[in-house]
């Protein structure tokens, strides 16, 4: 009875959120009339944010197939639910194709007058870009659905081989996508580690979301189905997982900065200069403090890791900081005057993030509360 009521309440929240998200996307479109390039930037950041959570979850599921461990079964409902919005994201990517010429300097009308851009044109051209984008999304959609199908089967002999290959494909496609969608915004910039950094941050964001939901569920004891076996110990395990991912992301991101700093060459500094020599550097400091120092310090403590409340706070912080990190990756090169927000930034985030959440949350609830759907069938 209460479960059914809860379900109705959640449905209302989902519908409301979907409406809010749709309105936000419409407003984004209106703003796009006014300042198309800034709106497209906001949209790109929000799109990659949604993609991060889905693809990171896919990577974590495949890592778990290879390593095993109770943490993976604990997080699995969230990770599987996070795969659901992936086809929607592929649809939401289409407006970016329409705005290609506004967003990317190499696709801008006068680009071929620039000798450096002409040299890059064999790779950075409209046709090849779209082919790569279709290939990446095609591979991701195939990997996600195949993984879901194979995980549903009780025993699958080729599962670990599939997961190992899938991880390799994920890294290669993510590097391609990160170079195309983010790095080519500054065509003079290069960094061979960039794809790996983005992939690591995606896995971190996905882990943070999964832990957030696990901790929420741990705090509210109204989900009698699927009781977690040893929650305190498992909370510690997933806390350690987040700690490791925080360190891995920080290490890779710092190594990229260190090589740019030591090399001091235009191909690398062209990207860092607008970020460090203007008021955007405040965002960089915020990333060091809230994406590394604070989560690291909290997750070092065993007491904190065994408390759902603390884990909840750290996971929420990491999710917010992942958005800040993507913003840092994409936006400053196009607002070189210093830190600036556009109206389209929160609207695009609300629009894409809201739809992502509705699809994810509805799926997640259907998985963890099978008794609720069963109760609905009964009179």
């Amino acid at each position, binding site marked *: 009875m209460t479960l059914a009521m809860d379900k109705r309440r959640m449905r209302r929240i989902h519908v409301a959120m979907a409406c809010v998200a749709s309105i936000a996307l419409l407003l984004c479109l209106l703003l796009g009339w006014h300042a198309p390039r800034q709106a497209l930037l906001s949209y790109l950041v929000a799109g990659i944010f949604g993609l991060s959570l889905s693809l990171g979850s896919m990577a974590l599921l495949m890592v778990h197939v290879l390593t095993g461990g109770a943490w993976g079964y604990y997080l699995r409902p969230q990770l599987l639910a996070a795969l659901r919005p992936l086809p929607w994201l592929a649809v939401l990517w289409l407006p970016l194709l329409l705005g290609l010429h506004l967003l990317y300097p190499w696709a801008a009308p006068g680009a071929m007058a620039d000798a450096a851009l002409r040299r890059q044109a064999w790779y950075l051209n409209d046709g090849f870009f779209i082919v790569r984008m279709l290939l990446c999304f095609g591979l991701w959609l195939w990997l996600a659905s195949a993984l879901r199908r194979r995980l549903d089967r009780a025993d699958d002999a080729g599962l670990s081989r599939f997961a190992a290959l899938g991880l390799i494909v994920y890294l290669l496609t993510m590097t391609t996508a990160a170079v195309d969608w983010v790095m080519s915004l500054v065509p003079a910039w290069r960094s061979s580690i960039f794809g790996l950094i983005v992939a690591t941050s995606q896995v971190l964001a996905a882990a943070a979301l999964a832990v957030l939901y696990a901790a929420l569920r741990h705090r509210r004891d109204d989900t009698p189905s699927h009781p977690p076996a040893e929650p305190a110990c498992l909370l510690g395990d997933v806390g350690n997982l987040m700690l490791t991912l925080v360190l891995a992301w920080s290490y890779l991101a*710092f190594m990229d900065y*260190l090589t740019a*700093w*030591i090399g*001091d060459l235009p191909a690398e500094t062209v990207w860092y200069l607008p970020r460090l020599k203007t008021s955007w550097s405040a965002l960089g400091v915020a990333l060091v403090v809230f994406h590394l120092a604070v989560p690291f310090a909290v997750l070092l403590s065993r007491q904190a890791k065994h408390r759902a409340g603390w884990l909840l706070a750290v996971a929420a912080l990491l999710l917010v900081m992942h958005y800040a990190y993507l913003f840092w990756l994409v936006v400053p090169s196009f607002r070189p005057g210093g830190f600036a927000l556009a109206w389209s930034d929160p609207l695009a985030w609300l629009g894409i993030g809201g739809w992502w959440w509705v699809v994810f949350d509805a799926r997640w609830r259907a998985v963890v509360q099978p008794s609720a759907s069963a109760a609905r069938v009964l009179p």
Partner: protein
Amino acid sequence: MTDPNVYGCMAQFDSAETLRGAALQLRHAGYTRLEAYSPFAVEGLAEALGPTRSRLPLLVLLGGLVGGVGTLALQYYSAVIDYPIDVGGRPAASWPAFIPAALEMTILCAVLAGVVGMLLGNGLPRLYHPVFNVPRFAQASRDGFFLVIRADDPHYDSDHARQALIDLAPLSVDEVPA
């Protein structure tokens, strides 16, 4: 009163699960100074033996901090104060380049503090331990699961401890001479 010639009372069990259960029951009976020995790590056994407050995490943290901050200070001293060299016009205090060495030294010093602190804390390496006075204890490295109630336990009484162990249906019970 406790006999200075007695280290404690030892019981052998047939499996890891009974060992863990026995440790839990003795804890409930009020014993706090328990020791368990098994041929392999038994999950949940350490928790069953009772809460331990270890100062080791603090020591590891301090070791790491000393290593990291010390290495940063050393690099600053050598590159800025003692022997400044102009490398391609970069500042003498090149903090980004100082960090990798500081990170490595943080890990090294934290690990060394942990290992040395662990050895100092648990008294290893140890040439003599009373539990080896019981001949069958050699099985602890093969297939024996042993539980010891130490004589310095505030609840310890020779007869009561022996009876408490016998009540747990062990394979054998021995008094351990000190």
